C-alpha cells in the first residue's frame, strides 16, 4: 500500500501537465477535420498519409480492387516520440527491433496467375501465398537476428491478433541467401500456410489507418463483401532507413465477382459481355469523400494492356464513354502508359476530395461490346504437386510451364537465356533427399550441372530446422517446360506435435519462383513527381517478378488418437505378464523342495544353508506370498513373515501407478478423449487382476 501511495502521485501530476499539451496537439487536427486541410505539409518534415484505390476489370468477369494506404514519418520527428498520423505501434516496432524492411501478409484464396496475370505490379508484389507470410530484414549483427526475429513474431502476433508467434520456432523460419532477395544475410523468412484470415486480422490492420474505416477509401471495406471474394490479401510493408524515415505501406488486394446488373433484357450473347459494375454494386457502399487526414485520396480505374489492345482504336483520346464501354463518372484525368503503342494500359483518375456526402462517388463501368483479353503473364507458370502413394514416401515436383508460344522465340533461341530462382522451405517431417533432385527439360532428363547454375541446400534437422532449397536455373527462353522432382520420406511425429485435425494433413509452404533476369515495370508517368501518387510511383519501380506455387497438403501417418490410454493399458498388461510369470518361474520349486523348505524353516532358523540362489529367492518370495495371501501352508512360522507386501501385489501397484500417472498426464496435457480414460483404467484393473489370479 505504501508503495502504491508513493508511486501514484507522479503519473497523476504528469497527466495534469500533459493535458494542455495534448489539447494543443489535437487542435490542428480538429481544425483540419473542419474542412480546410489541403495537404500543405508534403515537403520534408511532415508526416503524410495517402490513400488510393485501384479498380481493374479482370478477364474472367471479376473485378480487382487494390487499396493502397501509405503513411510516412520523417527520420527525425519534430515531436519526439509522438506522431500525428503515423501509428505509434509500428514506429515502436521499427525502433525496437531495428527493422530495415518488413512485409507481413495475410491471404485467403490463391492468386490465379493464369487468368489474373503475373507480370504487372499487382501480382508481382501483391499476390501472396495462402495463409500468412512474414519476412523481415534487420539492421543488426548476425548473431542477434534470430533472437530479434523471435521477439518480433511475438510482437506482431499481439498486434495483428494472429498466430505469427508459431514462426518463432526454428523449425518454421529460414534465412534464404540469394533466392528471395539478392544477397542478404540479415533476412528471415517464414510462412504459415494454415493460418485462417478473417476480420480479427483486418480490424487491427485498419486501426493503423488514421481514419480507420470510418471515412475515406477504407469506408468501402464492408466485411461480408470482402470475405465473399475469391482472393483477398492484406499486406503490410514497412521500409525504414536513415534518409527516408519509416514508410508504412498497407495494401489490401481483393478479387470480387460483381453482381450482374444486366437484367432488363437477356441476349444470347450475354455470356460474352463483361458484367457491368460500380463501386456500390461491388462493395455495397459508396465513397462519401476522402479521409480528411489524407494528403491525397484517389481512385483509379485501370484498363490493362490486353484490354486496351483488344479495344484498339475505340479508346483513342481521353474518351471515358465510347462505343465499347461507358464510365458512370467523368474522370478527373486520364493517364496512359508512355510506351506509345496501342498496347498501353489506361488509367482513369478520380480525385476523391471533389466528392462528399452529398455527391458520393460511385465509379462504375458499363460495357457495350463484349471483350475478351488476357493479362500479361510471367514467362513461366509455376505449379507444384506431390507424386507417389502411401504414407511412407513420395516426391515433390515443381512444374514450370512456359507461357510463351514457341514461335515467338524461334529466331533468337540460341541467344536468349532465362534465369529462374526457386526457393522452397520444407518442414522437417517431410525429409527431402536432395541428392535425388532430377531436372527434366521439355520432358527429357537433364544433367543437373547443365541446367542448375547455382544451388544451395540445407537439409532438415529433426525438430530443429526445416529443409531449405535454393536453386538457380539457367534455361534457354525457348524452353517449354521444366520439372524438378525430389524424393522424400515422411517422418513420424510425437503424439503431442500433431495439430488438432491431424487427419487433414500437413501444409508445406509455397515455393517461390522468381525471375531475376526479368525486371518488369510499367512506364506510367505521373506528370508531377511532387504531387505524384505513391501507387503510380510503385508502378514504376522495377521489382523482381515472383510467383508463388500452391501450398502442398501432405497426409502424414497418424496414430489413433483415442488409443494412448489403451496402448498404455495393453503394454502394461504385457509387462505385468512378463514380470509376473518370470518371477513365478524363478521362485517355483518342485514338491520335495517345497517340503524341504518347510521342514527347514520350521526346524532351523538361524543357520540355514543357502546352498542355492533359487532357494534363497524362493524362500524370500514364498514367505512374502504366504504373509499376505494366507494361501500358503500353515506350518510356516510367522517369524518368517517379513512383510505384508507380496510381489504380485507390488507389481499391480507399480503398473497401476505408472498407468494412472500417465493417464493423468494425458488428462492434463492432452485433454483429447477424457471418456476413454475411465474405460482404459477399468480395463487395466481387470487385466492385471485376471493375470494375477491365473498366476497366483
Amino acid at each position, binding site marked *: 500500500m505504501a508503495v502504491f501511495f508513493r508511486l501514484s502521485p507522479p503519473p497523476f501530476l504528469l497527466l495534469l501537465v500533459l493535458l494542455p499539451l495534448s489539447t494543443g496537439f489535437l487542435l490542428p487536427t480538429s481544425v483540419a477535420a473542419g474542412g480546410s486541410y489541403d495537404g500543405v505539409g508534403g515537403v520534408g518534415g511532415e508526416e503524410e498519409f495517402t490513400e488510393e484505390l485501384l479498380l481493374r476489370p479482370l478477364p474472367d468477369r471479376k473485378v480487382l480492387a487494390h487499396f493502397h494506404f501509405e503513411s510516412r514519418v520523417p527520420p527525425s520527428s519534430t515531436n519526439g516520440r509522438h506522431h500525428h498520423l503515423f501509428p505509434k505501434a509500428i514506429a515502436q516496432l521499427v525502433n525496437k527491433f531495428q527493422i530495415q524492411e518488413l512485409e507481413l501478409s495475410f491471404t485467403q484464396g490463391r492468386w490465379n496467375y493464369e487468368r489474373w496475370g503475373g507480370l504487372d505490379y499487382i501480382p508481382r508484389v501483391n499476390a501472396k501465398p495462402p495463409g500468412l507470410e512474414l519476412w523481415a530484414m534487420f539492421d543488426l549483427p548476425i548473431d542477434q537476428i534470430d533472437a530479434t526475429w523471435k521477439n518480433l513474431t511475438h510482437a506482431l502476433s499481439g498486434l495483428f491478433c494472429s498466430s505469427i508467434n508459431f514462426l518463432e520456432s526454428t523449425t518454421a523460419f529460414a534465412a534464404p541467401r540469394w533466392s528471395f532477395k539478392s544477397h542478404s544475410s540479415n533476412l528471415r523468412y517464414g510462412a504459415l500456410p494454415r493460418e485462417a484470415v478473417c476480420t480479427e486480422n483486418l480490424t487491427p490492420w485498419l486501426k493503423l489507418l488514421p481514419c480507420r474505416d470510418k471515412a475515406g477509401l477504407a469506408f468501402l471495406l464492408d466485411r461480408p463483401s470482402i470475405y465473399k471474394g475469391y482472393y483477398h490479401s492484406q499486406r503490410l510493408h514497412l521500409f525504414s532507413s536513415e534518409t527516408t524515415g519509416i514508410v508504412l505501406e498497407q495494401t489490401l488486394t481483393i478479387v470480387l465477382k460483381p453482381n450482374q446488373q444486366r437484367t432488363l433484357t437477356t441476349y444470347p450473347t450475354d455470356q460474352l459481355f463483361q458484367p457491368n459494375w460500380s463501386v456500390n454494386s461491388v462493395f455495397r457502399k459508396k465513397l462519401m469523400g476522402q479521409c480528411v487526414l489524407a494528403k491525397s485520396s484517389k481512385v483509379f480505374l485501370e484498363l490493362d494492356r490486353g484490354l486496351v489492345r483488344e479495344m484498339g482504336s475505340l479508346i483513342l483520346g481521353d474518351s471515358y464513354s465510347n462505343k465499347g464501354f461507358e464510365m458512370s463518372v467523368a474522370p478527373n484525368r486520364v493517364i496512359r502508359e508512355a510506351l506509345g503503342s496501342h498496347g498501353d494500359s489506361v488509367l482513369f483518375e478520380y480525385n476523391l476530395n471533389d466528392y462528399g456526402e452529398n455527391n458520393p462517388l460511385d465509379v462504375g463501368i458499363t460495357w457495350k461490346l463484349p471483350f475478351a483479353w488476357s493479362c500479361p503473364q510471367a514467362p513461366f507458370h509455376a505449379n507444384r504437386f506431390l507424386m507417389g*502413394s*502411401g*504414407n*511412407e514416401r513420395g516426391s515433390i515436383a515443381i512444374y514450370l510451364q512456359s507461357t510463351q508460344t514457341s514461335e515467338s522465340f524461334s529466331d533468337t533461341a540460341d541467344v536468349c537465356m532465362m534465369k529462374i530462382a526457386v526457393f522452397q522451405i520444407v518442414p522437417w517431417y517431410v*525429409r527431402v*533427399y536432395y541428392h535425388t533432385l532430377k531436372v527434366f527439360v521439355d520432358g527429357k532428363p537433364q544433367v543437373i550441372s547443365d541446367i542448375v547454375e547455382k544451388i544451395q541446400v540445407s*537439409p*532438415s*534437422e*529433426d525438430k530443429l530446422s526445416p529443409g531449405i532449397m535454393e536453386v538457380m536455373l539457367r534455361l534457354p527462353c525457348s524452353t517449354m517446360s521444366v520439372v524438378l522432382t525430389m524424393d522424400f*520420406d515422411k517422418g513420424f511425429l510425437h503424439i503431442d506435435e500433431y495439430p488438432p485435425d491431424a487427419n487433414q494433413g500437413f501444409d508445406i509452404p509455397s515455393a517461390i519462383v522468381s525471375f531475376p533476369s526479368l525486371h518488369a515495370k510499367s512506364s506510367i508517368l505521373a506528370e508531377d513527381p511532387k504531387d505524384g501518387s505513391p501507387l503510380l510511383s510503385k508502378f514504376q519501380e522495377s521489382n523482381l517478378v515472383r510467383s508463388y506455387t500452391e501450398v502442398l497438403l501432405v497426409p502424414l*501417418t*497418424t*496414430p*489413433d488418437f483415442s*488409443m494412448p490410454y489403451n*496402448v498404455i493399458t*495393453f*503394454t502394461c498388461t*504385457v*509387462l505385468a*505378464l*512378463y*514380470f509376473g*510369470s*518370470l*518371477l513365478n*518361474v*524363478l521362485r*517355483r520349486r*518342485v514338491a*520335495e523342495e517345497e517340503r*524341504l523348505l518347510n*521342514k*527347514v524353516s520350521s526346524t532351523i532358523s538361524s543357520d540355514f544353508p543357502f*546352498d*542355492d*540362489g*533359487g532357494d*534363497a*529367492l524362493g524362500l524370500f518370495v514364498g514367505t512374502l506370498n504366504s504373509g499376505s495371501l494366507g494361501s500358503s501352508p500353515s506350518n510356516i512360522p510367522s517369524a518368517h513373515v517379513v512383510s505384508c507386501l507380496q510381489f504380485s501385489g507390488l507389481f499391480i501397484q507399480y503398473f497401476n501407478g*505408472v498407468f494412472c500417472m500417465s493417464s493423468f498426464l494425458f488428462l492434463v496435457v492432452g485433454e483429447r478423449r477424457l471418456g476413454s480414460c475411465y474405460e482404459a483404467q477399468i480395463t487395466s484393473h481387470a487385466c492385471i487382476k485376471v493375470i494375477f489370479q491365473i498366476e497366483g
Partner: protein
Amino acid sequence: MLGRHMSNTPTLLVQLPSVPYRIELNLIFVIADFITAMLLRLTGQNLQLAYRQFLRSKKLLNLLETSRNVDAGDVASLVFLWNPFGILTCVGGCTSPIENLMIVLSLYGACSSLPSLSAFGWVIATHLSLYPAILIVPIILLLGYGPDSPPKKLFLLTSMKPARSHPLEQSHEQVSSVDNESELQVHHFSWQPVMSFILWSSIWSFYVLVLCSIFLKDFGSLSEMLKKSFFLIVFHINILFMILPLAIRLKHRPCFLAFVYIAISSMLKSYPSVGDSALYLGLLGLFVNELQDIRFSFFLFFGYIGVSLLSPVMHNLWIWRGTGNANFYFATGIAYACLQTLLVVESVNAVLNHDRMLRKQLTA
C-alpha cells in the same frame, strides 16, 4: 548431413558411407553374420564339452548318449544362418549384424577365457547400442566360473543311491563326506580373468572414446546420446528390473543368462529390430539339450511365423493403403511382445526343470 536421417554411432557413421556400392555393403553384413555363426559354433562346442564332462563324471550315460546325437554349436550356427530374420537384416542393410557379431564375440571370448577379446566385444557392442551393457553380469560369471554347467551342489552329489529316505539329511551327509575327486571339479570363482577383463574393457573403452571424440565434431556428441527424455528412461528401466533375480537363479549358467538378457532387452527396447531376434534365436540353439522339454514350442514356432507374416501386412494396411489404422500394427506388435515373453519364460522354466531333472537322476 547424414546424421539426421540415420541414427548410429559416430564410428559406424564414418565407416559405412565410405563403402561405395550397396552390394558391397550387404557383403559386409553377410560376412559379419557368417563370422557370428562360426563363433556361435565354437561357443556351442565349448558348452557341449563342459556339459559332457559333467555327465561323464557323474556317469549319466543315457543323457550322454542323447547329447551326442545333437551338436549344440552346429544347431546354433545353422539356426542363426538360416534364420529369415537374419537374412532380412543382411538384405535390408541394417547395421544389427555388426552389433550381433560384437555381442557373440564377447560371449565367445568369455567362454574360451580370453578376457581381452571379450572386453573388446563388450565395449564395442555397448558403444553401438548401449543395451549390451547388461551383459557384463553373465560375462563376469562366465570368466569367473567357466562355461555353463549344472548347479554347483550337483557336483558334490554322487550318483549313489540314497540310503536314507529324507533328502535333506542325505545331502547333508554327502556334503560332509565329499571326496577329493569331486571337489576338484567344482569351479571356484576365479578373480584373475575378471580383473583382466575389467582392465581390458577400460582400455578398449578409452580407445573407443578417443575414436569417438575424433569423429564427434561431424556427428553430434555424447550429450546427444544423453539427451533422452524422462519417459525413455522410465521405459528402459524395465529391462534392468529382472537382472538381479535372473542372475541369482541362473548364475551357474552364464551363457543362458546372457541369452535371457539379450531376449529381454530386445523385447523391451523402444526400437526393436528383427536382427535382435535373429541373435537370440541363434543363441537359443546353443541350449538344445537343456531345452528339449520346452513347453509351447509348437505355439511359439507358429506364433513367430504368423507375426512375421502379419506385421508387414498390417504395416502396409496402415501406411500404404490407409485402410487400417495404427491399432492393427500395434496388435501385431503386442502379439510379438507376448510371444517373446512366453519364449523367455518357458525357456527359463525348461532350463530350471532340466537342472531339477539332473538332480533327480543323481539322487534317484
